[in-house]
C-alpha cells in the first residue's frame, strides 16, 4: 500500500511498516496506532478504509490532528436504576485543572519537516558560533568522540547541510 510516497508492505504489521517513515521509530509507531485506535497487531493489508484515511490524515499534518474521544464507560444521562432511591447531590468541589501533559504526537515532525528543522538547529549552532556548530562545519565528531575512529562516520554525515541516510 502506498501512503504519502512510502510503500508499506502488505504483509507487515502496521507498527513495523510505519517505521519506513523518517522520524517514526519503534517507540512512536505503536503510540500513533493507539491514538488512532488501531490494534497494534493489525497488518497493513487488514487496515480498513477509514483507518487508512485517519492514518494519512494524521501523518500529513500531525499538528492539526485531534485527540480521540475518550470512550465513555456509561452514558452520563442514564437514569439511576432504582427510581425510589433519591440521588444525593454532592457539593461541587472546585478542583484545580489537571496540568496538560504535552504529547509528542501533537507536534510530531516527520520526513522533510523533521529534516528541515534538524538542519535549522545545526545552522543555528553555527551562526551563534558554538563549538558544536564549528565541529559540524569541520565535519568532525560533535559530541566529544575521538577523531581517530569515529571520525570517518562524522566525515560522512556531519556537515552544515547534514546528510541523512
Amino acid at each position, binding site marked *: 500500500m502506498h501512503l504519502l510516497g512510502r510503500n508499506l508492505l502488505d504483509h507487515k504489521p502496521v507498527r513495523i511498516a510505519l517505521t519506513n517513515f523518517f522520524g517514526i521509530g519503534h517507540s512512536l509507531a505503536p503510540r500513533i496506532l493507539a491514538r488512532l485506535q488501531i490494534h497494534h497487531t493489525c497488518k497493513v493489508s487488514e487496515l480498513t478504509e477509514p483507518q487508512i484515511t485517519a492514518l494519512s490524515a494524521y501523518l500529513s499534518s500531525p499538528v492539526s490532528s485531534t485527540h480521540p474521544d475518550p470512550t465513555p464507560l456509561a452514558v452520563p444521562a442514564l437514569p439511576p436504576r432504582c427510581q425510589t432511591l433519591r440521588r444525593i447531590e454532592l457539593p461541587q468541589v472546585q478542583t484545580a485543572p489537571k496540568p496538560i501533559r504535552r504529547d509528542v504526537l501533537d507536534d510530531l515532525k516527520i520526513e522533510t519537516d523533521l529534516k528541515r528543522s534538524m538542519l535549522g538547529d545545526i545552522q*543555528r549552532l553555527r*551562526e*551563534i*558560533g*558554538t*563549538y*558544536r556548530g*564549528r565541529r559540524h562545519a*569541520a565535519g568532525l565528531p560533535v*559530541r*566529544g568522540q575521538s577523531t581517530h575512529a569515529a571520525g570517518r562516520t562524522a566525515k560522512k554525515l556531519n556537515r552544515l547541510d547534514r546528510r541523512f541516510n
Partner: protein
Amino acid sequence: MRPTTTLLRSAWKGPFFVAFPSLQSALRDNTPIFTKARACTILPNHIGVRFMVHNGRDYLPVTVTEEMVGHKLGEFSATRKRFSYRQTKNK
C-alpha cells in the same frame, strides 16, 4: 566542560552558573568581564555583556546575544587550533 545538553542535570538543581559581581557595572560601562568559568550557563541577564572567556591560554572575546542563552560560556571560546599541515624544512 561538556557542551550544553538536556537531560544531563536534574531540573530541581536549575542551571549551573557563576555569579559575576561586576555584571551590572559591566553592562553599564561595556567593559569586558574576564573569566575562567567556562562551565557557567549563559543566563538571560547576561545578554549584551562582553565576556573574555579563557580557553586555556588566553582570553577570547564573547559578546552574549539572545540566542546564546542556555548555552555555556566555554562553547564560544575554542580551545583547539585548526590543524594545518606544515612542510618540514629539514628532510
